[in-house]
């Protein structure tokens, strides 16, 4: 009864606060749209490379769509040339020694240059190997001819000596056989490769990896902030104190908040998931219902956490100060950087981040199509987080009323 009135009040207040509503519903869509466009264009990046006294064969080998060549004739240091022309790198040759100097202000450009050079080296080595094989084959053929002639003459000789020593001649012929088979001219096999993608296509960008994580994150972030600030306002204006002077139970206050803001979190989640499906045409291998379920649980954790963290803030300004401490680290451990590539001591930290469980369950449903049973343990942990923070909330309200 009281909880219902609490929910009604929270909804009325929220509906009258148009700006907060806009923040909650439009800002996530704006962020996701921006990210969509930002991560689309990074595939056709090119790097400019200065070239000084390099063998043309090597230059030819390096050549690809992502590298622009600039011939350099000046004798100045690599540093000066790169600075003056804003090249991503400079390659120069002295005898057998090749030096690649990189500006390295943009690591992705450096990576393009390094990769191109490596590829070129492999290409050249392969070519060298191929010519070597050809040369060998010729030599072998010549040898073969010489051998067969020798065999013939040997055979003639052995016939003559057959009565004395027949086995010796046979042994010699035998040893000859392996060489003959080995020297059969091999036809070079050309493999044709067909790539199949379980998720996405050859056009997939980093955005496709990022999106499941970001959906979880924006829901988490906005619900955390708004619910935290709402309860904080209730503390600072004294209405919480006033409310506790009525026979309401502490649990009823918390559940009223949970249900009231939960409704907005639900609408926000539906909006975000619907938007990503319709506008970005995101491919979802698993069930949409699982995605909604994960997001709603994440929102509940954020809600309970926001309410709890607001206990430690005495103003809206202080509440915002908790974002770098509580929210930002969660992004790092949410799977944008793969957890199993982290240092060993860092990995357990991910295990205490609610967003890690939410985001990895999201990625698994969207990209690997796992079922409800597979994400159940992670959902269970999220429920555990929410329960933990709710209990802490009920205890922290003892400050205001001891019964």
């Amino acid at each position, binding site marked *: *009864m*009281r909880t219902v*009135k609490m929910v009604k*009040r929270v909804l*009325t*207040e929220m509906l*009258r*606060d148009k700006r907060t509503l806009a923040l909650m519903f439009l800002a996530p869509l704006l962020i996701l749209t921006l990210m969509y466009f930002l991560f689309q264009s990074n595939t056709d990046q090119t790097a400019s490379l200065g070239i000084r006294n390099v063998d043309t064969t090597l230059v030819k080998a390096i050549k690809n769509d992502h590298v622009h060549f600039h011939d350099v004739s000046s004798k100045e240091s690599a540093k000066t040339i790169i600075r003056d022309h804003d090249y991503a790198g400079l390659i120069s040759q002295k005898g057998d020694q090749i030096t690649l100097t990189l500006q390295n202000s943009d690591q992705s450009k450096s990576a393009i240059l390094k990769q191109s050079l490596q590829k070129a080296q492999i290409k050249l080595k392969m070519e060298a190997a191929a010519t070597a094989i050809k040369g060998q084959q010729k030599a072998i053929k010549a040898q073969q001819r010489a051998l067969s002639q020798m065999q013939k003459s040997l055979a003639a000789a052995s016939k003559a000596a057959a009565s004395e020593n027949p086995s010796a001649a046979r042994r010699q012929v035998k040893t000859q056989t392996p060489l003959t088979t080995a020297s059969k001219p091999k036809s070079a096999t050309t493999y044709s490769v067909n790539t199949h993608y379980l998720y996405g296509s050859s056009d997939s960008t980093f955005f496709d990896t990022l999106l499941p994580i970001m959906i979880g994150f924006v829901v988490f972030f906005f619900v955390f902030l708004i619910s935290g600030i709402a309860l904080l306002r209730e503390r600072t*204006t*004294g*209405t919480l*104190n*006033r*409310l*506790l*002077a*009525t*026979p*309401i*139970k502490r649990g009823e206050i918390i559940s009223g908040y949970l249900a009231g803001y939960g409704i907005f979190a639900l609408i926000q989640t539906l909006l975000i998931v619907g938007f990503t499906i319709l506008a970005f045409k995101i491919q979802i291998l698993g069930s949409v219902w699982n995605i909604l379920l994960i997001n709603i649980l994440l929102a509940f954790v954020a809600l309970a956490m926001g309410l709890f963290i607001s206990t430690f803030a005495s103003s809206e300004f202080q509440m915002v100060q908790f974002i770098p401490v509580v929210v930002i680290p969660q992004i790092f451990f949410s799977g944008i950087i793969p957890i199993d590539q982290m240092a060993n001591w860092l990995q357990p930290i991910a295990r205490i981040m609610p967003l890690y469980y939410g985001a990895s369950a999201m990625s698994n449903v969207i990209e690997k199509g796992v079922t409800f049973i597979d994400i159940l343990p992670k959902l269970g942990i999220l429920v555990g987080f929410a329960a933990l923070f709710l209990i802490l909330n009920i205890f922290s309200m003892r400050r*205001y*009323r*001891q*019964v």
Partner: protein
Amino acid sequence: MATTIQVSNLKQGYGKTIVLEDINLTVHNGEILGLIGPSGAGKTTLVSTIMGMLRPQEGTVTVLGQKMPNRKLLAKIGYMAQTDALYSALTARENLKFFGAMQGLGSADLKKQIPYAAGIVNLNPDLDKYVKDYSGGMKRRLSLAIALVSNPDLLILDEPTVGIDPELRQQIWAELHNIAKEGKTILLTTHVMEDAEQSDQLMMIRNGIAIAQGTPDQLIKDYQVKTVEDVFLKAGRQQDAHS
């Protein structure tokens, strides 16, 4: 006469700081008790303890025959806080409805009680305005109406007359006396001497200790002074002389 509030040997504080010591207090049905004292004397702490927001460190508090703290008993206590604790995004009517419902009033009771409570503080014409558009005095009056809306047996008012003009103050006092005549008990804190003179009983608190207690007339007589204000000043000097 039945006892509404009974406080015996109360010691109260936060952690190791002691705010109140040796407080004994009895308030009967139909009485208006005024708690006076400088700010920081411990008035609000005493009020919170009587309401059961704080558990007594030592001693007992009984309200309407029940030992405090007692959550359910809060339904019978109307409370007006020192700060205007109102939802500014809601209208005055919505605030009254919400807090009334929290006190346990059904919608039929609310329909009857809201015009009554708002009438006492002259807010009926402005009930459907948003609280954020209210002036300071209007907010104070709305807070009082919220305390009155559930028609409680015990009314606890923390500084009720701050920011209320003299005419309305008189009107409110007349209504408070009416409420008391019905057998309801009123406890209010104040540092306005006019309010103190209107009370049936006075308790003067200074540095956490009750320095004088009695009816205004009795106190004036006992201390051989002319006004309640002088009683307070003289009692304060005596307290300083003893310590």
